[in-house]
């Protein structure tokens, strides 16, 4: 394997969780719900996946564990914000704080345990293509899922009837309600989809990225995923591109550290976070594009009048 292929592989590994978590949040936000708890759902997914894999010995059951724990955890957020109409920003923060705490407590038993790594699946014929083959077709299941998810969500949001409903709710929940769409139920499902995705992203972290459990191992990726949604202006394909851009920044700073260029490692580690800020400025600077695409009901509570 050439060094070029090796770098590309690590970029993909770093980008996949960002893409998946951000994609879930994209659907949630398209339905008008702002869930800032991505970081918390992700870390719960990571510990859920690790625990499920340890208890059963199978990384695939680990994936299921991650998805289920992320979705169940997001249900807590959905109940509070949708049924009890609490403030979405504050509740999202609560979800993150609780997630980081609970994962630390649940994961304590697994600190230092040898992880179970999810192995790559080689797709015959395609993987034999030089360069592209090893990078794209000798990957783990979660990578394939991430690509399928981008395609699927894009189709779902813009081509399916339910997708249309979700976008309608996100843009004007009162009108959607008047048209007979069940706003609350749809939002519940959208939040849980977001949670499931964040959980899958967490599973990628504890089964592939660093196959072990360490506290706070999501280290801000959930927040970067939230920024990615803004970056993508709520469009799946742009989100995929953005995710890979961020993954590349993360990996390049690691390689720069390894090559020992004269900049202290801490400053290189700041790069992904600084890049997020810069990108946010670039995107929000242009008021027209952000205003047109932002779901108009985003973050607003909905109480049906009876």
């Amino acid at each position, binding site marked *: 394997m050439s060094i070029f292929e090796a770098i590309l592989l690590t970029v993909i590994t770093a980008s996949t969780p960002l893409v998946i978590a951000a994609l879930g949040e994209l659907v949630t936000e398209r339905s008008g719900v702002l869930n*800032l708890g991505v970081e918390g759902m992700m870390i719960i997914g990571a510990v859920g996946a690790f625990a499920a894999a340890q208890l059963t010995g199978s990384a695939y059951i680990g994936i299921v564990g991650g998805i289920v724990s992320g979705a169940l955890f997001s249900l807590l957020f959905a109940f509070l914000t949708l*049924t009890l109409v609490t403030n979405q920003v504050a509740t999202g*923060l609560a979800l993150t704080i609780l997630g*980081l705490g609970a994962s*630390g*407590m649940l994961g304590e038993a697994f600190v230092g345990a040898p992880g179970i790594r999810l192995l790559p699946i080689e797709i015959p014929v395609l993987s034999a293509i030089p360069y592209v083959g090893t990078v794209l077709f000798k990957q783990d299941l979660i990578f394939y899922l991430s690509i399928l998810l981008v395609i699927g969500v894009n189709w779902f949001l813009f081509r399916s009837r339910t997708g249309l409903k979700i976008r309608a709710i996100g843009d004007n929940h009162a009108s959607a309600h008047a048209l007979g769409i069940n706003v609350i139920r749809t939002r519940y499902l959208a939040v849980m989809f977001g949670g499931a995705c964040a959980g899958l992203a967490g599973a990628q972290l504890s089964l592939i990225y660093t196959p072990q459990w360490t506290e706070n191992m999501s280290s801000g990726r959930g927040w970067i995923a939230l920024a990615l949604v803004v970056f993508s202006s709520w469009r799946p394909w742009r989100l995929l591109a953005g995710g890979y851009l961020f993954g590349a920044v993360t990996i390049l700073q690691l390689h720069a550290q390894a090559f020992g260029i004269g900049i202290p490692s*801490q400053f290189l580690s*700041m790069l992904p*976070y600084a890049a997020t*800020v810069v990108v946010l400025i670039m995107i929000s600077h242009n008021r027209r594009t952000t205003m047109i695409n932002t779901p108009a009901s985003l973050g607003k509570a909905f109480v049906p009048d009876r």
Partner: protein
Amino acid sequence: MRIELEKRPDVSKLFGFVSPLLALVLTLTFGAIMFAMLGKDPAAALSAFFVEPLLEVWSLHELAIKAAPLILIAVGLAVCYRSNNWNIGAEGQFTIGAITGSYLPIVFYDWHSPLVLPLMLVLGALGGALFAAVPALLKAHFNTNEILTSLMLVYIAQLFLDWLVRGAWRDPKGFNFPVSRDFAPEAVLPAIWEESGRAHWAFVFAIIAAIGVWFMLRYTLKGFEIVVLGQSERAGRFAGFSAKKMIWFSFLFSGALAGLAGMSEVSGSIGHLQPAISPGYGFTAIIVAFLGRLNPLGIIASGLVLALTYLGGEAAQLSIGISDKVTRVFQGLLLFFVLSCDMLIYYKIRIVWSRVRGGAV
């Protein structure tokens, strides 16, 4: 079964007081269940967590030490949240305040003067305010989401501190440990009542800040401006208030208080800089602000409660062998219950048992 909410004609004053207490009770109940599931006697565990730390004088001092930064930061955050500015990066402003406040005692180690401590206080507050100015500038001029930018800056501040204590500011005599040199005595925030414990002046600052902000919110035009702009930017504009200026004011103010808290923490409690200077005070202060209903006097009470969770976590770890991670779980649960109980202020709950739906859904 369905839960239906019915809007109250008026905001319920009663539940304004009852809801934080209800949230506490619910958190304790869940805590008891959690301890039982961990195989501990719930009563003994809860008492070790929440009661025993209150029974000794030295331990009350520790409570004041932990409550001080929480109250200081939360009071500033309350101004932000009331004016609808979401500063989530207090942890970063705390860190930068600690760094700028430590500039004198580390770089000018040999300068002994009674001026050192007052200057450190000013520098700490200034550092925190300047760091908070970044998300404020970006929000005011580029319309950038302040939640995400202030949060990204937390990671940047922590890495910057890490670099300082491992590099330029490392103590040459520190046996290669990543710590700065210890502050000289005149750079240490003095204890309030030395005979009985360690509690230092930060707690006094916190109380002064809380009372000052309470006065500002209640009796001054600035306070009125904060509340009006927070409830409706449009209404504020008609009154001639500027939302843009409010972004600056609330961020600089909360940043300065967080910076002051950071400076007090390194000067009063730790005595030098090190890679980790906060057990998440900046994030816990968010819970403190909400539990105190964004009211500075309420924040004094809620700051003490959250400080108790830190203290109880440490105590429970020693006495009954429960992981100190339980602290974070308690804090998260508390915020959840606070938010959900607050709903009772605005809505009445009606549980509908029948499956027959009334009218169009």
